[in-house]
């Protein structure tokens, strides 16, 4: 299985670490909303199909990635930086001119 890191290009899955469900929204640290905290910690969609996920290219450039992976087929339909402000540094075609 290959995952295309937006910086490094296609790499073996062994270089990546799953960082969890990408649908979670962490409440503000001072939030007293117990339902929101409960949802953040426990509630998962667990879909049979496309799933928003956070991964890290831990054995490469070490950036955190936002991906959509199909839980039935493992097909990855999109990858991008979890922090979306590195588009300027995104990979150009391997070996190509910028």
């Amino acid at each position, binding site marked *: 299985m290959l995952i295309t890191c937006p*910086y*490094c290009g296609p*790499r*073996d899955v*062994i*270089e990546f670490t799953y960082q969890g469900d990408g649908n979670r929204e962490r409440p503000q640290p001072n939030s007293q909303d117990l339902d929101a905290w409960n949802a953040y910690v426990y509630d998962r969609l667990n879909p049979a199909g496309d799933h928003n996920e956070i991964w890290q290219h831990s*054995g*490469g*450039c*070490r*950036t955190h990635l936002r991906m959509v992976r199909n839980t039935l087929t493992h097909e990855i339909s999109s990858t991008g*930086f979890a*922090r979306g*402000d*590195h588009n*300027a*540094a*995104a*990979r*150009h075609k*391997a*070996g190509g001119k*910028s």
Partner: protein
Amino acid sequence: MAERQIPERLSPLEPVFHPGSHGNFEHGVDVILTETRPGSILQLAAWPGEEKRLIEAIRKVTGLALPDGAGGGVADGAKAVFGFAPGKFTVADAAEGLAAAFAKVVTPAIGTVTDLSHGRTAIRIAGPKAEWVLAKFFAIDFALPAFPIGAGRSTTHHDVFAQIQRTGADQFDIYVFRSFARSFWKALCHASDEVGYEVQ
């Protein structure tokens, strides 16, 4: 006050560094392994949005102009620089003192300078079978069109981080943790056995 002694640099490879030809070299030596021993190895990181200013600082200090694009790099024989992550660069210099030079130019508003001169070991593999030997170690494409001269790659060999810069058509410089360098070197020698290798 007592005069300060300049510490002598010792190689972590020393006990297993055996110059000469080894392995299956009867039909010729197909790779040459060396330790390049740069005086300075730095990691530079730009805060988001400050990448261009950091690239400009690199040009100012080293005279090296980074090509555009992820993993782009350039080497001139004494100095080398390449991107290894978004907004992050490895810079090496045969001379010492690069960290001090960068500290003057990379202000806290631009980013950070981390001196890894004593924390990394640089190993060079060169020769017609260099690509072929490295392909046994790393699951990345070493072919010249996919990995151009000067470019850098971040990857791992059995959980040991490696940053690789192509410094020639058949030459690669590999930066590994100093504490893992000896074991990496031994593995590289074993991998080079069958093609015949020379340690210089």
